[in-house]
């Protein structure tokens, strides 16, 4: 069966970007779908990256640019996959484009409109630490470099009483177009890479840490924006106008924690905490920095070294999971048991940073249902085999990259993305898909069309079809030879014996049984 020589990548974070680039470089068409107005994902929001401390944006933006300009890549930003049909080699994907109200081809990101726009609101790119206009570009290096209008805020869209941006843009490229509506496009692809990423644990679920109660309790991710030169504070770590002198980091917030249903380790928190501790030290040399931890897991290349370095920089590591954070004057007190010295410690702090872990992204959950992918107990997407098929899914032609499959750091993500790309390339470069030998088949003349086999099939490989039989049209089962994996579950639920598995037909099994009997006698 012929294969459509193109691939779909769901998600425009580092995983999706890497996978898309690899497939496209191999010479195949790639459709990349990203729900946000720009690709870049979480990584583009990070400040420095451990353990090498190179700036996240500096290493990512070139890749984003490559991707934006790649002749083989068609970009669907501000879009969502809404439907997937078919099977390996022949998927049919429906994509919804949300209206930007701005013509991508005309807008050159001059930014005039933004200056004239009078509406302001929180800026999610800076985790709501700063403001952004109703007409905005997510961040300066956004790909595509094109403005978007926020339908929840734009006065024209809400009340039709403001056309500032239109006026100013008319003078130039006249790119603003309020007539835009949702557009649905269908693309055919041979394989799919799922890179739908993760969300961060919401520390409100750990009320003892007082997040949102005290404005000097922040998450690690907010810290990234704070310490980022392009962030709201242009890189100075300032809380309520003061540079914090005493900083406490709390690790494993929402990871390794049964009470919130996340037993797993998020694998990055130890190291980004170490990195952030280092950044504080760098920016405030005389700060007192304490890190509360359960265990420090510095398993990656150069990780342990970095951890040691940070400790030498006078960052105090205390083993213990804080029980409470409470206010004292305008400062905070972090209460914990140091399980090494077995003493109760209370550390005063101007800033408490919660190292929140990863949870499966909202998008990931939707995609799982859409593609009928199974999920492991940790609720991340499940791979076909934990050791031998870590980027495959049970359904052929669909592969996993990045944190949708489980928490991982950037190098692992990139590695997995390339692996997924390589896997996704197999059917594409093969040009055809081969079917199993031992798949099921239907004896249509005796099939009752009861559909029990349809229920039993774990691969949705069986469906009922209408055929003409002596005059009237009756429904019988039919096997999709590409999807069928040959487990035979269908054959064993078939009452009439119409459904049979090649090489394991009832007749063959019965003869084997009879032959065994003969052998004994």
């Amino acid at each position, binding site marked *: 069966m012929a294969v459509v020589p193109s691939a779909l990548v769901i998600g425009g974070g580092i995983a999706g970007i890497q996978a898309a680039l690899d497939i496209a470089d191999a010479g195949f068409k790639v459709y990349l779908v990203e729900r946000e107005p720009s690709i870049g994902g979480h990584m583009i929001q990070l400040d420095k990256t451990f353990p090498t401390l190179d700036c996240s944006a500096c290493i990512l933006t070139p890749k984003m640019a490559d991707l934006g300009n790649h002749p083989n890549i068609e970009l669907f930003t501000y879009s969502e996959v809404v439907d997937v049909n078919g099977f390996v080699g022949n998927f049919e994907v429906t994509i919804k484009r949300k209206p930007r109200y701005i013509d991508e081809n005309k807008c050159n990101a001059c930014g005039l409109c933004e200056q004239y726009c009078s509406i302001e609101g929180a800026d999610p790119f800076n985790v709501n630490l700063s403001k952004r206009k109703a007409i905005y570009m997510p961040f300066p290096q956004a790909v595509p470099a094109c403005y978007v209008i926020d339908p929840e805020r734009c006065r024209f869209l809400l009340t039709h009483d403001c056309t500032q941006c239109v006026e100013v843009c008319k003078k130039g490229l006249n790119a603003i177009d309020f007539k835009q509506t949702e557009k649905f496009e269908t693309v055919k692809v041979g394989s799919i890479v799922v890179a739908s990423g993760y969300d961060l644990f919401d520390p409100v679920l750990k009320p003892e840490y007082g997040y949102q109660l005290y404005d000097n309790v922040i998450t690690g991710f907010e810290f990234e924006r704070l310490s980022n030169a392009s962030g709201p504070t242009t890189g100075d770590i300032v809380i309520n106008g003061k540079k914090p002198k005493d900083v406490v980091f709390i690790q494993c917030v929402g990871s390794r924690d049964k009470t919130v249903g996340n037993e797993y380790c998020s694998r990055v928190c130890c190291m980004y905490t170490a990195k952030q501790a280092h950044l504080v030290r760098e920016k405030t040399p005389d700060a007192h920095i304490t890190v509360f931890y359960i265990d420090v897991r510095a398993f990656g290349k150069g990780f342990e070294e970095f951890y040691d370095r940070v400790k030498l920089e006078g960052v105090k590591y205390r083993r213990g999971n804080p029980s409470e954070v409470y206010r004292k004057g305008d400062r905070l007190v972090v209460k914990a048991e140091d399980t090494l010295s077995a003493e109760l410690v209370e550390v005063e702090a101007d800033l408490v940073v919660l190292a929140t872990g990863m949870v499966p992204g909202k998008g990931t959950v939707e995609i799982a249902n859409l593609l009928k992918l*199974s999920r492991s107990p940790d609720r991340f997407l499940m791979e076909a085999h934990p050791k031998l098929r870590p980027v495959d899914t*049970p359904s052929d032609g669909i592969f996993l990259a990045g944190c949708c499959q489980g928490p991982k750091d950037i190098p692992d993500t990139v590695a997995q993305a390339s692996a997924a790309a390589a896997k996704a390339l197999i059917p594409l470069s093969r040009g055809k898909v081969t079917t199993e030998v*031992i798949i099921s088949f239907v004896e249509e003349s005796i099939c009752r069309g009861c559909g029990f086999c349809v229920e*039993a099939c*774990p*691969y949705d490989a069986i469906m009922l079809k209408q055929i003409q039989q002596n005059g009237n049209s009756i429904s019988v089962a039919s096997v999709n030879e590409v999807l069928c*994996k*040959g*487990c*035979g*579950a269908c*054959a*064993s*639920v078939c009452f009439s014996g119409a459904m049979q*598995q090649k090489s*394991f037909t*009832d007749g063959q*099994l*019965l003869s*084997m*049984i*009879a032959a*065994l*009997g*003969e*052998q*004994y*006698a």
Partner: protein
Amino acid sequence: MLKKTDPEIVAFLCNWCSYAGADLAGTSHFHYPPNVKVIRVMCTGRMNPLLTLSAFRHGADGVLISGCHPGECHYMEGNYLARRRIALFRKLLGFVGINPERLRMSWVSASEGNKFSRVIKEMTEKIKQLGPLGLEEE
């Protein structure tokens, strides 16, 4: 060589776990009684309980159906499907006076050669106690 009086067990093993497990038992020289004769199926999900009846009819005194541990099925669900059917079918056997112990299942992974030999030992012992079923007679 088996004597006529020896219990006879037909084992249906799934291709991915138990068949490999049995193979491992052999290659790693875990001993087990010779009373078992193996039929390979791709997945225990293929096991229609009526096949076990046929095995009894052709002289088996016991039937073993062995597959991957729950959640490890190569085909995701086959072993669950088999488990439900056999659970119900055993009840029916017991009801008509065929000791349900003659029909057992086991989860044996590809790495559990020792478990496979243990299962066969236990099963053979049990069937020895129960004696011949005699469905091959009229």
